[in-house]
Each structure stands twice: as structure tokens, then as C-alpha cells.
């Protein structure tokens, strides 16, 4: 396949058009025998044989001897990846887009600050702009994008694609991000909960590589988990599995946005943590990273908040450990930067509330991919979707 200009209607143009036909047939049909290609394209078996020989020499296809209905046949497979994939990561204050290859590896990424929580329609419109701008800058044709996955901070209903009623971004409740993105981008888009995608990324390339039973816990505005059982993501009947932020811990605790009291989120979520601090003086921490920094410097109030958050997280994890018996728990989010100040109380309260045999096999680690985890997971899921389509 060369890019040399050829005269229309000439022998060379005809050969190129036929070659394209064969490649298209392989792209949509996967592995085909030469006879099947000939039937599918209408070309003569001899031309197909010639074209396949050329394509094989150019490294575009691989040929394998096989049999079909008892006769010898040659199975042809397209080697070159069928297309690139795109991932989008929505967080309350930021949109990030990435282009990945057909294996889900990051080729390029670009992020912008945007008030995503304010209005879903606008956020989607801006996300589409970000994808278009990213593709234009990289000179990647829209048409080569095989699949798009969007990471959203909230449970996604498996049947309708709707964001659940209780999310960190109340205005997104009932919104269907996959549908809105699909109609604007013109490519099939699937939306998935961000913690689920983080879990996928961590078992592929991160801290939990090669593990089969993993729970990823993301602590941000709220608390969410991605649960991997037997190497596959566990989504539950409606897609809300892993909403561990609403495990009830304290009947007399604060009322949560879900309507219950004392949910895990009310002692771990970023707004609650910052709200626990006395708002005095100019140096009062106003965000979780500031809170963590103050705790490291030895501020007693901040140390207390981090330690209590750790204790609550340990109790929550204990319930999960008893239920799922994971071999590894991966933690992600800004609060994890506190390190041992958080993990030490986590372990202590885990010991009190967990079956010894479940605890013995369980490791607790920090995520290996940091804040890129959701984006990486989205690329992996998009690559899987693209591969299953071809």
C-alpha cells in the first residue's frame, strides 16, 4: 500500500481499490479464509491470492494454513491495529482526554480545568471539543477512532446508562453521558464508573498487576470502590456495586446526601474532612492536600482528622474483606498522600473487625497509577470494546 498517485481507472488504481476491498473485508470480518474473502468481495480467488501475497509481504496481514470443510485453506488476519481509542475522564473540576492505541496504551493526553459538576450538557460539549482538539493536533482522523470510554464519578446504570441519583455531582443525576457523547462525537461511547476503571487499570498495569481478587477504593469528594472478582469487574445487578461510601457506620452520625446517617462518606469524603477543621486563621487548610500537609507538619487537629478517617476506612474495608476476601486492597485519592498517618489506623481497625484468615492474605497498598488510573482504565475498556467489535 503506497501513497503514490495513480491515474484513475488505470490498472494500478484498480489493484489498489481491490486491495482496499480485501482490507475492509478483513477489518469487518476478523480472520477469514481466502475463499471467504473472494466470496465476500466478489474478487476472483486468483486476485485474492495475489493481493494477500502482497499484503503479507508488506506486513499488513498474517497467513496461517488451516482447513475448511475438510479442504486446505489459508486463514488471513489483519495485523495492523484496527484503530485508535479515546478515553475521557470527568472529575468535578477537570476534563481529561487521552488517545490510546488498540492495546490501550496512552499515546497522548490533554486536560483542561472545567466546572464539570455545574451542568452536564455543557461539560459534555466541552469534552467533545477537547477530543476534537486533541485529534486535530495529533492529525488523527476522526474515522479511525474505534471506541470511546468516559469515566464518570458516579454509579452508571447498566441498562439505561443513567447516572444514579446519589452522586458527587447532583446535577448529573439521571443524565446519560454515554448517549450525549455518542450523539455529539458520532462514535460509540460507553460510560463507566471511575472507581471501576481505576480497578481495571491497576490490575493491568498498576499496583495490583497479575492479581485476581482486588478491591480499589477511591477517596475523593465521596468514596467509591471498584471490585474485581476472579479477574473480572463485579458490577452488580444495576451497576451500583462498589458504592461503599454509603456503608452505614454510625447511627448517630451526620446525615448523608443519600438520606442515611453516618455513612462512610461522611467521615472520609473531602468536604466532610475539611469541614471538621476549625476555620480559624489564614493558614486553615481548605482542601485535602493542605490538610495532609498540615498533618505531616504535626498540626494536632489535622492529625486527628486523618487518623479518624483511617479508622473509619479500616472498618469499611473490614466489611469488604469479610465479604469478598480480596488478596489486595488498592487505595487512591488525595487523602492517601498522608501515608502511614492514614494507613496505621486503617490496619489497626481492620484487625479488630476482620476475620483473621481474610486479613492474613490481604495486602493494602497505594495505587501505582496515581490520578491517571481512571483514564488508563477507560483506555483499556475502550480497547476491549474495539477489539470485540472487529
Amino acid at each position, binding site marked *: 500500500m503506497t501513497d503514490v498517485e495513480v491515474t484513475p481507472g488505470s490498472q494500478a488504481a484498480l489493484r489498489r481499490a481491490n486491495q482496499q476491498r480485501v482490507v475492509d473485508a478483513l477489518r469487518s470480518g476478523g480472520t477469514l479464509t481466502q475463499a471467504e474473502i473472494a466470496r465476500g468481495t466478489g474478487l476472483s480467488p486468483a486476485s485474492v491470492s495475489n493481493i494477500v501475497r502482497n499484503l503479507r509481504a508488506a506486513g499488513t496481514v498474517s497467513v496461517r494454513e488451516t482447513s475448511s470443510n475438510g479442504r486446505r485453506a489459508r486463514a488471513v488476519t489483519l495485523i495492523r491495529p484496527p484503530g485508535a481509542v479515546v478515553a475521557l475522564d470527568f472529575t468535578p473540576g477537570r476534563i481529561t482526554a487521552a488517545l490510546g492505541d488498540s492495546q490501550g496504551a496512552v499515546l497522548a493526553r490533554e486536560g483542561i480545568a472545567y466546572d464539570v459538576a455545574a451542568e452536564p450538557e455543557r461539560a459534555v*460539549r466541552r469534552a*467533545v471539543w477537547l477530543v476534537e482538539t486533541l485529534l486535530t493536533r495529533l492529525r488523527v482522523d476522526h474515522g479511525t477512532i474505534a471506541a470511546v470510554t468516559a469515566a464518570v464519578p458516579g454509579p452508571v446504570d447498566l441498562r439505561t446508562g443513567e447516572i444514579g441519583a446519589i452522586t458527587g455531582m447532583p446535577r448529573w443525576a439521571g443524565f446519560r453521558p454515554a448517549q450525549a457523547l455518542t450523539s455529539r462525537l458520532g462514535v460509540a461511547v460507553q460510560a463507566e464508573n471511575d472507581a471501576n476503571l481505576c480497578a481495571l487499570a491497576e490490575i493491568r498495569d498498576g499496583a495490583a498487576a497479575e492479581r485476581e481478587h482486588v478491591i480499589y477504593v477511591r477517596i475523593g469528594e465521596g468514596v467509591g470502590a471498584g471490585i474485581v472478582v476472579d479477574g473480572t469487574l463485579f458490577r452488580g445487578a444495576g451497576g451500583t456495586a462498589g458504592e461503599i461510601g454509603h456503608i452505614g457506620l454510625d447511627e448517630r452520625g451526620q446525615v448523608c446526601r443519600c438520606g442515611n446517617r453516618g455513612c462512610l462518606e461522611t467521615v472520609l469524603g473531602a468536604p466532610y474532612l475539611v469541614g471538621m477543621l476549625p476555620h480559624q486563621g489564614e493558614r486553615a487548610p481548605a482542601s485535602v492536600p493542605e490538610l495532609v500537609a498540615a498533618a505531616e507538619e504535626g498540626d494536632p487537629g489535622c492529625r486527628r482528622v486523618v487518623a479518624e478517617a483511617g479508622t473509619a476506612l479500616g472498618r469499611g474495608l473490614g466489611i469488604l474483606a469479610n465479604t469478598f476476601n480480596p488478596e489486595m486492597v488498592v487505595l487512591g485519592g488525595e487523602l492517601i498522600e498522608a501515608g502511614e498517618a492514614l494507613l496505621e489506623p486503617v490496619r489497626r481497625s481492620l484487625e479488630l473487625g476482620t476475620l483473621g484468615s481474610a486479613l492474613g492474605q490481604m495486602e493494602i497498598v497505594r495505587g501505582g497509577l496515581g490520578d491517571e488510573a481512571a483514564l488508563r482504565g477507560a483506555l483499556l475498556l475502550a480497547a476491549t470494546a474495539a477489539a470485540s467489535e472487529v
Partner: protein
Amino acid sequence: MSTPVLELSGISKNFGAVQALNQVDLTVSAGEVVALLGDNGAGKSTLVKVIAGVNPADSGDVLFEGQQVSINRPADAQRLGIATIYQDLALCDNLDIVANLFLGVEKTAFGALDEVEMERRALKLLDSLSVKMPSLRVPVASLSGGQRQIIAIARSLLGEPKVVLLDEPTAALGVAQTAQVLDLIERLRDRGLGVILISHNMADVRAVADRAAVLRLGRNAGDFNVEETSYEQIVAAITGASDNPVSRRSERTPATRTEEA
């Protein structure tokens, strides 16, 4: 969207033998972003200059908030509430942000510059646009392209305009900076201003514009609702792909073709 804030109809403009604008119509409503699109030489800049009063039209009507007006000088446009931000931004690189914002409209107290009052108002203005600047007292030369664009747009807002014309505000900006300018355009719309956005970047247009008005060879070549129109349709209007003898012929049924012949 009630009555248009700015309504141009039948605008024509000649430069000698060259007809730069031929019976062009354009309307902008309050709280609406209209993208003005067209190839090079389509008449976009000429139309902007007509609206800004730099090059008055030879003929045609201009209605501003329903009233017939004539814009013959830049001062006329400014008085009506039409602000224009050109590509060169017209910022003074050696002056700080506050001095640039109040260039030509400096506040004075007792015969001297009232720096405190100007800084206070500058802060309020930038806050209302959710714009974050490292310091209001750094020379504009040290700002990024996107920040300079934002300062130029913010400056135009001091005159409380009703219509803002932006000439290629996102050209030559990085992704994050372009996003900031797009945010600002959305905020102008939320404030109820009419925005005319000239751009060659279709992604930017699709991200913020409500309507796209296309000019081609000095004439109107289409007015599209951006949400409902495909990228290809707009590009076809810009390039004239939808309006040439070949496509016209192919659209016609055989019956009308004989009529033509």
C-alpha cells in the same frame, strides 16, 4: 431570545471595483454566541469593521435594540455598546494589568491616578469573570497568550457593552488557554451579552457557538443552528461545495434539468 440586540440587513460595501459585501444580513440576540465563518476574503473582517464603525457600510440598515442607528465612526459603535477585540489585542506590553484595563479611561482622584480604586474595580471585574491572574501588577508582556486575550476581553467589558465582537480569539493558543477563552465566552453569554465570534476553528465554534453565520464571497451562504448541523454541512457552506454548478445539477431531478436546459 426576544428581539435581536443587533440586526444588520442588506449591508453592502465596495472598495473601488471590488464588492466586499453584497446584501449581507446578520443578527445577534442577547445571550447568544454567533460564529461568523468564512474562507479568506469572504468578507468577515469587512463586516466586523462595518459593525465597529471603522469602515462604514455603503448601504444597508443597522438596528440596535430595535432602533435604526448609523455607525459611522468607532466612537458611535462604542457609544451604542459594541465592543470589538481585534487579533492584535492592542495591549501595552510594558504596562501592568490594571493600567491596561483602564487605558484611556483612567480613574483620577485629586488630579492624580487613583490606583487603589482602579485596582479594586479591576479585581471585581476579573472576579466576576472567574479569571485568576497571578498578580494585577505584572507587565502584560509576561502573561501567556490566553491571559492576554482574556485581559483584552475584560477591558472591553468596562464600557458595559451589549455586543462583543471577537476576531479569532483562539488563534495560536494552546489547548488549556483556548479552553480558558472558551470559558470566558460562555460567561459573556451567561451575562446576557451578544457575542460575535470570528474563528477558523470548527471545534471551537461547535464548543461555544449557538448559531453559525457563513459568508462566502461577500454574501450570506447560510445560517445554521450549531447543535443541529453537522460539521460537514457547515464546511460545505464555507467552501461553497454545496453551491456550485455540479452539486446543483446533481440535486435536480431529470425533469427540472430539462427546464434548465
